[in-house]
């Protein structure tokens, strides 16, 4: 299996790096100021005032993340009427039927497991992870995906399941 960066993943990585570097800068500034001799009352006067803004800023930032998430939930939409694909994970294989689709089709993966827990990761022909869902014994998890790009897709196991976990893969085709 080959993997590559997706645009979404790069955006998340960039966001993380921005936050991480900002934090590094803050810690560096505090470390630099640590050797100075400032009255604690002076520090707290400014510190407590700034803390209110810091609290408000974090509430807005974290709250925005939560609210935005609600608009992009990956959970199945019962109104969708795509083809249903039965997928079952087993030690150490994926069975699926059907396994050929037209590009642009909406597909609902109806996923279960015949033995232990597995995780269905779907990689597009470029090797970008486009989504995942768990495969659990006794349960049917439904994953809606639109298969836009023609080519060979790959299913890989994303939940540790035993000594050949990394070999549990299967290809399927999306035709133009």
């Amino acid at each position, binding site marked *: *299996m080959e*993997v590559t960066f*997706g645009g*979404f*993943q*790069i955006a*998340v*990585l960039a966001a*993380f790096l921005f*936050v*991480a570097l900002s*934090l590094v800068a*803050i*810690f560096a500034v*505090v470390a630099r*100021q*640590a*050797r*100075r*001799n*400032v*009255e604690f009352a*002076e*520090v707290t006067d400014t*510190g407590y005032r700034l*803390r209110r803004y*810091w*609290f408000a800023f974090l509430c807005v930032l*974290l*709250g925005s*993340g*939560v609210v*935005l*998430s609600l608009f*992009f*939930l*990956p*959970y199945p939409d019962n109104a969708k009427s795509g083809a249903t694909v039965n997928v079952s994970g087993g*030690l150490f294989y994926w069975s699926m039927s059907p396994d050929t689709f037209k590009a642009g089709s909406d597909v609902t993966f109806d996923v279960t497991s015949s*033995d*232990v*827990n597995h*995780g269905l*990761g779907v990689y597009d022909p470029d*090797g970008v*992870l*486009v*989504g*995942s869902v*768990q495969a*659990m014994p*006794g349960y049917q*998890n439904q994953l809606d995906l639109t298969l836009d790009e023609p080519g060979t897709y790959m299913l890989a*196991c*994303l*939940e*540790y399941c*035993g*000594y050949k976990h*990394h070999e549990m893969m299967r290809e399927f085709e999306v035709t133009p």
Partner: protein
Amino acid sequence: MNEMAAAEVLHPLGEQLSPRSSKPQNLVGWLFGGTGLALFALMALVGLVMRLIQAETIDITSVWFYRLMTLHAAGMLAGALLSMMGGLWFVVRAVVPELNFGRVIASWASIIAGVVLVLVAVLIGGFAAGWTFLYPLPFDSSGQWSTWAAVTFIIGMGLVGVGFLIYCIDVLRATTQTYGGLTGALAIKWLRGKDPTGPPPQVIAATAVSLQGIICSAVGMTIVMALLDHTVDGDVMLDALWAKNLTYFFGHTIANLIIYLAAGMIYVLVPLYAGRQWKLSKPLAIGWLFTICFVMTAYSHHLYMDFVQPGAPQMISLVASSAAALPVAVVTIYTGMMLIWGSRFRWTLTSILLYLGFAGWAIGGAGAVLDSLIPINFKFHNTLWVPAHFHNYLMMGVGLWMMAMVSYLLERAAGRTASRRTTIWAPALMVAGGYGFIFCWYVSGALGIPRRWAVHPIGTEGYSLVASIFVVIFLAGFTMLLIEFASLARTALARRRTATAEVPLQTEAPAHPEPAPGAPEPMLRSPFGIGVTVGLAVIASFVLLPPISDASIATIGFHHLAHGVQFFLAAMLAVALASTPSIARRMTPRWTNFGLAIVVLIPAAMLLFMVPAIYSEIDNDNFLHASYHFGVLLLGFITGLGASMLGRVAGWAVLVSSIGMALMFAAGVTGG
């Protein structure tokens, strides 16, 4: 420590903030800190081997990779847990002398016994189902390990949970007894103006963590006992979603609580180098109350990709996982930075490690919050982003604090700081190596490389190779640190030999202004409370009426629910009985160990007792059937009595958790 030594290792004003130490504190500090750090060192080497396997630099089979993966995670968890349990105990004992030395040692022994069983299960039995032992994998090994190995591992992890449970019960008992109950120890009374001084911050942290730890351990014990029931009776089937919920509630919460244990220690150690006290404040007290709520409800983000998980826990987790960052960022880390700012901070090896730990917690927390957003998790779930963020805050946060704790004890005992070379180079190498290693994982996660793969996708081995080089750099810094620790230990021993006569060891820590009461408070304090409890027991006794009893055999779940209600009713009667003045006054502290043993063993025994293979055989014999139910009642009654020996808060916490164990068991054990 004498003042001359203090002036050398601490801020000039730090000595007066230094926790007064006693012999038990020192012993616990050395024992927990030392074993924790030893486990950290061993498991770090195992981690390096795993990365080298993924880099295809060394040729070891994937079978062994997964064994090492299981060992690495379980060992690191136990090591970090031990260290931070010891660190918090050390600082809290200074203000809560009620904390019992024997019980904390019992807790240590249980965790070490658990680690030994894990080692046996993995290295001899070949167990490799991951430290989360997600059902049904431990029993479906594809021929790689036997049932005995699975059972040994599960019991081992159970003992780790038992050790943490013993610790939490004693901490909760002691802090609430010393600081006026749960509302006193969590500073709720202080917030409401009913307590003029309030507890110190480390006591709030200890109380909050121990309360959560009891709940978390009870959940862990339930899944462990259910798995053992499955071993005893192969017909016992567990619901896979239920098992996953319990496993992740236990696993996520216990791992998360390690950081909060550390926070309590930080409240005391950072001021020693800043010369400013970490005081109780409204944001701190309120922050901890919210932390309890958020930590207890965040675990479901591990189940985001289980689309059949009900929507409510998913949404609660979405909010809680982000909101949990607020008390950390706005209260704990922010206050720490204010204490340090302009304080003429005393930079030593210890204080540098403490400071860097804050950064690890903050940066790793950012990675965690991103992954806790469902649309992001959809494309990052179980990729290498996950170990990236938790190594970020565990290795570069808690890991550095584990070292800081031992460094503090050593610098303090030696009366000198570490050498300038080590003070600069050891942290520098560990930061360069640690963040380089973790950054490779963040990038690999964005690439979509799955976690827990022995062999990585084609063309990505280079990331593992670069990461391995960074791990070696980290270990070089860590080795330098260990060599310095040996040097400090030699100085400390020499100093002890020459100065014992001059520096008498303080034998006991000072008590809280209000002397701790000798006997635990009864679980029910008024005749009204006793009446209500008896009333609840009477209502619950309806479960014994033949129509209800007969109906309960319709399904295994209902049958187990009936057992749970029987346990509940007997426990309530025992609590009411033990709260009557004539019995309550006999519940002296000498019964505490007995009560603790009861509440740890009996609820677990009850779940083992609920194997259908045992009771289905006797269903047709009225006498044996009645005896069985009498046995369940007896176990409930004994548990109620045991809880009463622990005082009001700890008693109710363990009793409610025990009843919860029975109810959870009824909800998830579906076969038999």
